[in-house]
């Protein structure tokens, strides 16, 4: 009788613990990727250049040019360039303009690639 009780108690323990197998809740960890905030700078403001006037001065028209400047109330002084240096200046400006265009273009491409507009 004592043995039967022992076996019965053991069976009950097995039965009870059996219910707990697989009953533990598993913790689920979700990793949600949060995208980086967009920098979203506006494109740089376009330049608005002021107009300037070139005056060509030769040995023949020098007197006339200075007289005209004085008449107009402008200081009779000119900052000069030779024809060759004028060409260099034109070329330098063209290169500056191209670099500006290239940089702006790169900026646009980066913006387009890394900060694309949301698809509607």
């Amino acid at each position: 009788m004592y043995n039967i009780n022992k076996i019965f108690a053991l069976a009950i323990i097995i039965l009870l613990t059996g219910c707990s197998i697989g009953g533990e809740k598993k913790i689920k960890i979700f990793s949600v990727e949060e995208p980086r905030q967009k920098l979203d700078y506006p494109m740089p403001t376009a330049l608005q250049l002021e107009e300037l006037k070139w005056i060509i001065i030769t040995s023949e028209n020098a007197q006339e040019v200075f007289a005209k400047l004085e008449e107009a109330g402008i200081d009779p002084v000119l900052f000069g360039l030779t024809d060759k240096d004028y060409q260099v200046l034109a070329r330098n400006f063209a290169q500056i303009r191209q670099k500006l265009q290239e940089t702006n273009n790169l900026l646009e491409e980066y913006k387009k690639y890394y900060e694309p507009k949301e698809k509607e």
Partner: protein
Amino acid sequence: MIVVLLMAGIGGAGIYVMKLRSDNAILKANQHKLETAITEQNKVLEQQKEDFTAILESNKKLNVLINTFKKDLQDLDKRFTKKNRDIGKLAIDRTDAIERIINKGGVNAARCIELASGAEHTPEELKATLKSEINPECPALANPNYVQYQ
């Protein structure tokens, strides 16, 4: 005794079934995870493909731009030296005319800088298709609809 054994047997069977159910649930979850992973991988591959196309297109665009720059500089040199032209001598012979040309060129060059810095095109610039209508300092930039004859 037999009853106890039977009960223990039933209990064992119950535990076994529960284990099977638990395994099944884990396998189902694994299957789901694998399917999700495949979908995600496909998405990543698709995105990579799109990125690669975008990079190629962007590179192509930049190459075209750099070639345009070279051509613009060559054109500028040509304007100064075409047919052994000497701008200095021309300026002595035809002072007023060259002054007008140089001032017009200066205005055009300044406009090119404005456009390069991101200024909007005017309707006239966009409409220009004839050589007489374009900004000769930077036609590709200023007049996108102008096609130069070779």
